[in-house]
């Protein structure tokens, strides 16, 4: 690895090296080593985590170059094939990219021709007194972009100053300079987020907000289809499913916004869509949990689990292919297009849809602020009532019911967050997180036990030795997961007090109940 930490950084269109060399006056001269022009790829996760940190990762042959905007450029060798940060050879690069999710693959964002030029400013003793490193790219036919970093060498400030003076356009060290350069490097950049932002006013009709939210999440789901088919990483399917689940929640939680028959029909159609990918997501989760599952059972039982994971991996392969076939099928495409057409986005489409297809329900015309506040307040009271009934002795079913209602409440709060003070919402959501996590883990444990038990039943009558061994191991795993579930239950009960406390109640009441419709303007500022 070589790393060059910049003392100055410049962005220019082209860089005439010959002219630059000529401009350097005695006793100094410039020695340049220019590499051949080669294809460079810019890599990033689908949700641009590297870009988000103002870094750019270039891949060229066996080499990876990481540009930390205006700060440094590091050069690493990567001989092996890789897709995830943890598969990188160079420890320093793994560390530098440590913030990138271990679940996300790095994919090519852009390919462009480029070359790297290394240079030294030498004095009359041939001593290096300053360094220069340039990355030149052809961003469009005949159009060049050059990123130049300069290094100061201790004790040679004067020489560095002379070199720096040859570059007249210093980069402004702000986001615009980075954003501007990025736009030149990746002209068709489409930022992706799994939390699409829908802007609306507090007086907007609930119908409008709901249909725009559905359109946005449907669009997000569709953006992930390609990644699911190509099987880049498991997050594509995860985001796809979350987006569809959000659509389904809007349909079931936003009561009275749409016509009842329409809602019913859409709910069925979205549920059908979700069902197609249920098994694949389950298998993804099992395989991602492999390490933690193995850690839960004694060493002697691990080989049995490995047999199960091999079976899961094979099944996952088949299931992924099946999902891919479904996604590419004519039926699927037609259904998705039909759904997208049904959920309008523009006002004109909306007017037409409201009258004809996605008909308005009885409450659809209510201002969204009033509608949302009433909905959340009602849901909160329901959850609180459930929560108050739960103690260490209550049957698990009630805890599950609490989880479901809690999740619905959280979804509502997320959908309508732009209507309320961002700061208050943030603290409120943060205060709910611990309970939410425990409820989630509690449920995961129970789903996992069920699935593993099903796996045991399926193999229970097998006469094969390794099946028997597996059944034994999985049994031990189920026991261990059951134990974790019990622990999680204790945590839930412990966290309930804070949820049902007067303090939390007051916060909910203040945000969702006491604010009169007129004071919605107050919240408007945050929209």
């Amino acid at each position: 690895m070589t790393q060059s930490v910049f003392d100055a950084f410049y962005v220019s269109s082209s860089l005439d090296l010959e002219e630059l060399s000529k401009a350097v006056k005695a006793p100094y001269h410039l020695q340049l080593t220019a590499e051949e022009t080669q294809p460079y790829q810019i890599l990033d996760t689908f949700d641009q985590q590297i870009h988000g940190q103002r870094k750019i990762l270039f891949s060229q042959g066996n080499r990876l170059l990481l540009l930390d905007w205006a700060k440094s450029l590091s050069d690493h060798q990567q001989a092996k094939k890789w897709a995830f940060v943890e598969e990188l050879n160079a420890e320093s690069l793994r560390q530098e990219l440590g913030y990138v999710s271990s679940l996300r693959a790095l994919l090519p964002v852009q390919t462009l021709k480029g070359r790297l030029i290394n240079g030294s400013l030498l004095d009359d003793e041939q001593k290096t007194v300053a360094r220069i490193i340039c990355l030149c790219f052809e961003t469009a036919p005949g159009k060049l972009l050059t990123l130049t970093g300069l290094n100061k060498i201790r004790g040679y400030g004067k020489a560095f100053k002379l070199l720096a003076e040859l570059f007249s356009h210093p980069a402004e060290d702000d986001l615009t300079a980075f954003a501007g350069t990025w736009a030149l490097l990746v002209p068709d950049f489409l930022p992706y987020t799994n939390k699409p932002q829908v802007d609306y006013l507090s007086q907007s009709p609930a119908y409008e907000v709901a249909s725009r939210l559905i359109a946005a999440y449907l669009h997000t789901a569709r953006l992930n289809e390609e990644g699911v088919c190509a099987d880049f990483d498991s997050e594509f399917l995860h985001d796809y499913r979350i987006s569809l689940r959000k659509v389904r929640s809007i349909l079931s939680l936003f009561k009275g916004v749409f016509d009842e028959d329409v809602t019913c029909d859409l709910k069925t159609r979205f549920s059908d869509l979700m069902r197609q990918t249920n098994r694949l997501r389950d298998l993804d989760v099992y395989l991602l949990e492999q390490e933690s599952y193995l850690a839960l059972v004694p060493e002697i039982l691990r080989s049995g689990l490995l047999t199960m994971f091999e079976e899961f991996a094979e099944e996952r392969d088949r299931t992924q292919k099946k999902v891919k076939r479904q996604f590419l099928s004519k039926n699927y495409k037609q259904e998705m297009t039909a759904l997208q057409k049904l959920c309008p986005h523009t006002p004109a489409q909306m007017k037409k849809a409201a009258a004809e297809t996605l008909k308005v329900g009885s409450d659809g015309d209510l201002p969204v602020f009033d509608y949302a506040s009433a909905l959340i307040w009602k849901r909160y009271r329901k959850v609180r009532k459930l929560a108050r009934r739960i103690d260490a002795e209550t049957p698990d079913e009630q805890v599950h019911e609490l989880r479901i209602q809690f999740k619905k409440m959280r979804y509502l709060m997320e959908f309508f967050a732009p209507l309320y003070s961002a700061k208050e919402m943030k603290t409120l959501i943060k205060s709910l997180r611990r309970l939410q996590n425990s409820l989630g883990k509690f449920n995961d444990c129970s789903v996992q036990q069920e699935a593993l038990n099903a796996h045991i039943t399926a193999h229970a009558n097998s006469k094969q030795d390794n099946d028997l061994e597996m059944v034994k191991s999985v049994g031990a795993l189920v026991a261990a997961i059951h134990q974790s579930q019990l622990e999680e239950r204790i945590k839930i009960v412990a966290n309930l007090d804070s949820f049902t406390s007067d303090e939390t109640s007051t916060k909910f009441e203040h945000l969702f109940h006491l604010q009169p419709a007129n004071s919605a303007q107050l919240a408007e500022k945050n929209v």
Partner: protein
Amino acid sequence: MKILACYSNKGGVGKTATAVNLAHALAESGLKVLLCDLDPQGASSFYFRIKPSKKLIEDAFFHDEKRFVKAIRGSDYPNLDLLPSNMTFRDFDVFLSNMKKSDSRLKKALRAVKSHYDVVVLDCPPNISKLAEAVFASADIIAVPVIPSTLSERTLEQLFEFFEDNDYPKGKLLPFFSMVQNNKKLHKETMARLTHLYGKRLLNTHIPFAAEIEKMGVHRAPVITFAAYKPAAKAYWGLQKELRKRLLRIGRTTVR
């Protein structure tokens, strides 16, 4: 920050070559290194193509912390800086003689860069003088190149005696064989005798007599940079490893 001196009370034993290659190898190994060229002839500076310092003159080295820091130059290699010498360094003895507590003056001067470096390598002039005494007092380790010849044997003996007579800790002295010619019977015999005499005090690494080391003057660069696979380069790397271990054993060096 640890202080590692390359010292010999006899000239022409490969002392500067050792200081240059050792400092470079320690820097390569990841330590932040400052090579201090205390020899007024400035051979270390020459090998790194660094010109003599113009402003660190007279006794500024010992008195003017700012100037001392400002005189430091980055080498062409990562982690390695150099404090170039100049002709006034030959008067160090005079300055030191006029100072109280002259023994601790060098260490005090180096304190200015304490936070910048893991190791300071001192390339010392070949005599027993006030400056040498300051080196003996300040250094954590003193690497002493010894040509396996009768004359060198005698100088090494004298050095140990001097330490004995003046109460400098002899444990700091780490002699090693330099410019070794294995085909010479005399070299072999001397090495066997000295190994018997000095035992564990002697470092294991032998620096061979090699053309590459001579060629450093042509390349004006450390051996590893132009002859990495030759025995001389490997020997300096081995010496670095051995001394690095000893420096760490002293315990206070921060290793990155």
